[in-house]
């Protein structure tokens, strides 16, 4: 009851005209930044940080919280409409959302993604409100082996994504992780796989790879299909999902939300792991699992709910322990510190008004995100009326600027374009690109956690299995692999037995 009263108090403060306007401004900035390739919401939060100096601590947190919530969804707008994930967490959204767009269901895909995001975000904000302290205790027991186990779980979810060709997908995944390891080694400072090229010293950023593999490849494919006269209908039919359709998707949305909340609390795991694991799980659970990748609504809803559900959950370790679990929450920590607020267990006692206003603003931000999302998505949707040639040309320019904007480095543009051509060749030879991208995104995280675990625990690789939580996550990962591969193995065994029976008969 005490929490409830505090939350109502926080809600009143959040609804004060100035605070509310600040939050809406943050939402708009975040959604637009998230939707523009290369300008991620983290960049937008970093750019917005100086503007928070003149705000109150509550205003600053509401502004940044608005950008955070809006940005996580914003990334899905470009993922659905032009196959460019605005944020790494929007990667699974490309797989299903863009397929829906190609079928002429862009508006439906956007609306489903938006509602799933809002649901995930609100559930996460409620979790933040009511369960922050106990969950913080659990998060406190996490060390490097647990972080590695969580990242490993994200990586192995690729088995579910491409279980029909697990071996080739593994080659693709590990090639991606290898690409992620290019550059200066994080522990020793020694260049690896750079072949003396200065442009590779800083490593290959996953955003650059992602833009190249998805956007540039898509443009080339668009051109190729147009030349063959089989271009898709690209118009946006404004047919929104019915209530019945929404109700049918309640289970994937709830599953995605739960996974997002659980993974979001693990510092470092974040929205990308949450979205990918949710997608993999949904593919396993869904009756249409085999159709995933062709625009299955459940495959869009689950990761969308999951990536938004990580927003509130990621703030649990920030507010209760002072540990930022992601780049976005690190910026929020900076904003708090700039305003003389020290996050940690005492924050709830000394600054309860601020804490509960932040909680309330997260709920409000996710509610009003629907409005901001619809407005930004409508603006973006006009892109779909543009002729494919012009759209393709603009996507290439956006991709180039997006790649350049990652580090203001022309070398990233070259790498992006090279991956674009590589992606086209991969498609031509039917080599899966999704596991490679996942490897590039999660590989550096996995390496950092693996190496620090080894360094901290006497080079003992069994540490991942002997510690209760990491062992539990690894066991879950093993079960997940078995679960994903079992149908294929059973099918093969059956065919072998049948063949032998036939030959003996």
């Amino acid at each position, binding site marked *: 009851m005490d929490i409830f009263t505090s939350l109502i108090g926080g809600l009143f403060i959040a609804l004060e005209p100035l605070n509310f306007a600040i939050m809406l401004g943050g939402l708009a900035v975040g959604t637009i930044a998230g939707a523009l390739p290369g300008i991620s919401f983290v960049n937008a939060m970093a750019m917005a940080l100086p503007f928070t100096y003149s705000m109150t601590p509550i205003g600053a947190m509401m502004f940044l919280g608005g950008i955070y919530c809006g940005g996580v969804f914003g990334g899905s707008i470009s993922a659905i409409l032009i196959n460019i994930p605005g944020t790494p967490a929007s990667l699974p959204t490309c797989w299903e959302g863009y397929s829906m767009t190609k079928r002429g269901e862009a508006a439906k895909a956007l609306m489903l993604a938006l509602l799933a995001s809002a649901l995930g975000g609100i559930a996460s904000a409620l979790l933040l409100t009511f369960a922050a302290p106990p969950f913080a205790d659990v998060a406190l027991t996490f060390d490097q082996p647990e972080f590695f186990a969580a990242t490993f779980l994200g990586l192995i979810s690729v088995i579910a994504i491409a279980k029909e*060709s697990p*071996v080739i997908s593994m080659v693709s995944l590990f090639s991606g992780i290898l690409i992620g*390891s290019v550059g200066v080694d994080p522990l020793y400072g020694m260049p690896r796989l750079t072949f003396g090229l200065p442009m590779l010293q800083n490593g290959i950023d996953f955003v650059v790879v992602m833009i190249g593999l998805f956007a540039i490849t898509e443009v080339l494919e668009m051109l190729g299909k147009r030349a063959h006269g089989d271009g898709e209908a690209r118009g946006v039919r404004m047919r929104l999902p019915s209530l019945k359709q929404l109700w049918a998707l309640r289970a994937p949305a709830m599953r995605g939300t739960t996974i997002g909340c659980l993974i979001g609390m693990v510092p470092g795991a974040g929205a990308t792991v949450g979205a990918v694991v949710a997608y993999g799980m949904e593919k396993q659970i869904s009756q249409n699992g085999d159709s995933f990748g062709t625009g299955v609504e459940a495959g869009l809803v689950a990761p969308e709910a999951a990536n938004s559900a990580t927003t509130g959950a990621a703030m649990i370790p920030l507010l209760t322990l002072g540990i930022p679990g992601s780049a976005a929450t690190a910026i929020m920590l900076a904003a708090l510190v700039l305003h003389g607020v020290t996050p940690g267990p005492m924050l709830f006692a000394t600054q309860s008004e601020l804490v509960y206003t932040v909680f309330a603003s997260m709920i409000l931000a996710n509610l009003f995100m629907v409005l901001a999302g619809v407005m930004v998505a409508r603006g973006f949707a006009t892109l779909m009326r543009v002729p494919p040639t012009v759209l393709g040309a603009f996507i290439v320019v956006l991709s180039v600027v997006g790649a350049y904007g990652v580090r*203001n480095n022309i070398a990233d543009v070259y790498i992006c*374009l090279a991956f674009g051509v590589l992606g086209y060749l991969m498609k031509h030879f*039917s080599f899966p690109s999704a596991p490679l991208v996942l490897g590039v995104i999660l590989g550096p995280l996995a390496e950092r956690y693996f190496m620090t675990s080894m360094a901290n625990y006497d080079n003992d690789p069994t540490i991942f299995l002997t510690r209760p939580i990491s062992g539990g996550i690894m066991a879950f990962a093993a079960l997940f692999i078995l679960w994903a591969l079992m149908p294929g193995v059973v099918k093969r065994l059956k065919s072998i037995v049948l063949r032998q029976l036939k030959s003996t008969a």
Partner: protein
Amino acid sequence: MSSGAYLRELSAPAGFLAGAIFLRSHVVESPEMANQMTRGLVGPASWPQLLLLVIAFFSVLWAVERVVLFKKQTTPRLATSDALATPINLQMGVAILFILLYGYLLAVIGFPAATLLYLVAWCALGGMRRAIQVSLISLLGTVVFLYLFVKLAAMPLERGQGVMGEFSIALYRLLGIY
């Protein structure tokens, strides 16, 4: 089954295997120094070498799988959304060339000029023949991109070298974004 058919089937996994073997000895410039720094599994080259080992292992598995499937005369199915046959023809080759050339020209003649030229070339390649239409799309598109990224997002986009750098600055001044 001919040896040529076998070779075709095995070319991709063999390529990955050969790449993994080659890269294992080229992970760092000084393997001796890396070895001295390595303690157990922790060292500057340990992680990439571990990955290369795994890639080599799966490449062998892949090769075995291809041979088995080839003997059964079934086409191996690949990943879900990626399994699309895409054409490679002259137009595609030109498109790839345009994209790579655009990337190269960005640093040489700057973002405004390179983008304008690229948009004109791409529209022509895509079959747009009306000069006014192509010019308008290219010009307006370039100006919108400049306002969006140079003015609003304050991104230091490439201006080009020498006289092209000066041209870019003059254009920025003309547009009121510098």
